[in-house]
């Protein structure tokens, strides 16, 4: 059964300007799908609409079904079904709460865990994102952690309730390249381990290529190309996709040429 279906999604602002037009795609259980597009392409609006969190003034039409629930007419929190990892891990964590308490909040609320069971669940979650020093991390405030550690905590928080869909909104854009690589490996592993479906939102084609199977390329609010990521990279059909692939290749050749 498909977990998420977006069908003919159109988003307009208060003045009637169309920001996202007729976007359709589906994510099945265990799928890994990317939405690729530059800023302003509507990829983040699409993800907000999926969670029923469009900013006031914007209206969505079409259909979005998340695990059978209509997210346009009756938006509701879907903490058990979907969770989000954000771009900037510093604002994704409450600065006044320890990492442990933030991971504990959804566990307490949705799984009713308390006391020792809650503590050990928090540590299991930290271990799942390969944070070995889990005692110290759980007691730390966000500003006491490095960028990579923060993003791991954010992923642990998102995965705490074993959602069936993880939405990753540019999860590595704010990180150093080496840390970025670690986080991508981690995402890859945790979604495999937990069988979670992944919707990966990014402007970076090579980054998406490392973790997803299928992709949709967005431009000016429309999907211009869809398909398995290998095929999209090998034989891009839309001119915009071709520019994306070409510019990524130019980085590669630059690296090759500088090789001693």
């Amino acid at each position, binding site marked *: 059964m498909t977990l998420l279906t977006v069908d003919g999604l159109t988003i307009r602002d208060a003045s009637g300007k169309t920001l996202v037009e007729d976007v359709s795609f589906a994510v099945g259980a265990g799928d890994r799908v990317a939405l690729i597009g530059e800023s302003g392409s509507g990829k983040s609006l699409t993800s907000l609409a999926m969670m029923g*969190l469009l900013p006031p003034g914007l209206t969505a039409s079409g259909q979005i079904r998340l695990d059978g629930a209509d997210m346009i007419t009756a938006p509701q*929190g*879907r*903490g058990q079904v*979907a969770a989000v990892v954000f771009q900037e891990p510093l604002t994704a964590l409450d600065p006044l*709460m320890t990492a442990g308490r933030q991971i504990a909040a959804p566990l307490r*609320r949705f799984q009713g865990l308390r006391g020792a069971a809650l503590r050990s669940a928090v540590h299991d979650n930290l271990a799942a994102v390969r944070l070995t020093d889990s005692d110290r991390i759980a007691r730390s405030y966000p500003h006491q952690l490095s960028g990579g550690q923060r993003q791991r905590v954010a992923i642990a928080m998102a995965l705490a309730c074993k959602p069936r869909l993880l939405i990753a909104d540019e999860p590595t854009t704010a990180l150093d390249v080496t840390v970025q690589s670690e986080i991508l490996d981690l995402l890859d592993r945790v979604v495999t381990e937990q069988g979670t479906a992944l919707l990966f939102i990014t402007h970076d084609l090579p980054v998406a290529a490392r973790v997803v199977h299928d992709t949709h390329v967005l431009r000016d609010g429309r999907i211009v190309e869809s398909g398995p990521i290998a095929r999209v990279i090998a034989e891009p059909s839309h001119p915009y996709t071709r520019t994306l692939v070409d510019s990524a290749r130019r980085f590669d050749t630059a690296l090759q040429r500088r090789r001693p």
Partner: protein
Amino acid sequence: MSCRSLHLYAGLLLVLIVVGGVLLSYVWLPFSPDDTSGGRLAPPGGEHLLGTDKLGRDLFTQLLIGGRIAIGTALGAVTVGGLLGVTAGLLAGFASRWLDDAVAVVLDILIAFPTLLLAMLIVAGAGASLATAVFAIGLAMAAIVARLTRVLVKQVLSKDYITAARVAGISWPRIVVDHVLPNIAPTVLVNLALQAGLAVLAEASLSYLGLGTPPPNASWGRMLFEAQATVLTAPVAALAPGIALVMLVIGVNLTADGLRRSVR
């Protein structure tokens, strides 16, 4: 000692001296407040530490009792201003755009209105009493606190951890208690501390104008007014409440400043 702690400790010391005097006044007073046996305008020294006022009342006693009113005003106005201001600010921060705009306009008008004038209008309507004065000062304070709270709430609401909580289906009241209030608290509390100093001054001004504490209760503002006519012959009667007032206000401001620096 760092600059921050110097401010904090110097401020706390000044405030504690005044608070100590107020606490003392509840267990011990040198004279009864309306004991006029000392004779008019007795000079400082001897039986009357600071001398007597023009009705023969002991000035030190008056000063201690005035301290009760000053501290009471500060606490009362901060309570009124804090409760009203934070509530209004939270509502505005969450409100839809037109309601938010309407609240912003009302707040701007209230803030543009001089505190004293607002307080005078309320006192004129409700009659001069300490409670009216405290409420009026608190109301003026609430406008400033509400505007600050509104901006802070909007900042916090734009953070991803709020979106994450909403995605998880956590209710708004829960989000306010868990995330919004703790994150706005440091700034709001420092602002309230600063406002407390201004409230003490505002009450003294109202009492000086005869719109605050009615006689015979000795507010420092009233004492200043009453000493005005005899300031050349009995300067202590004007200096004592003046110095006490300055001490408390500077103390509160230094404390607030120290807190502000340590919050950063």
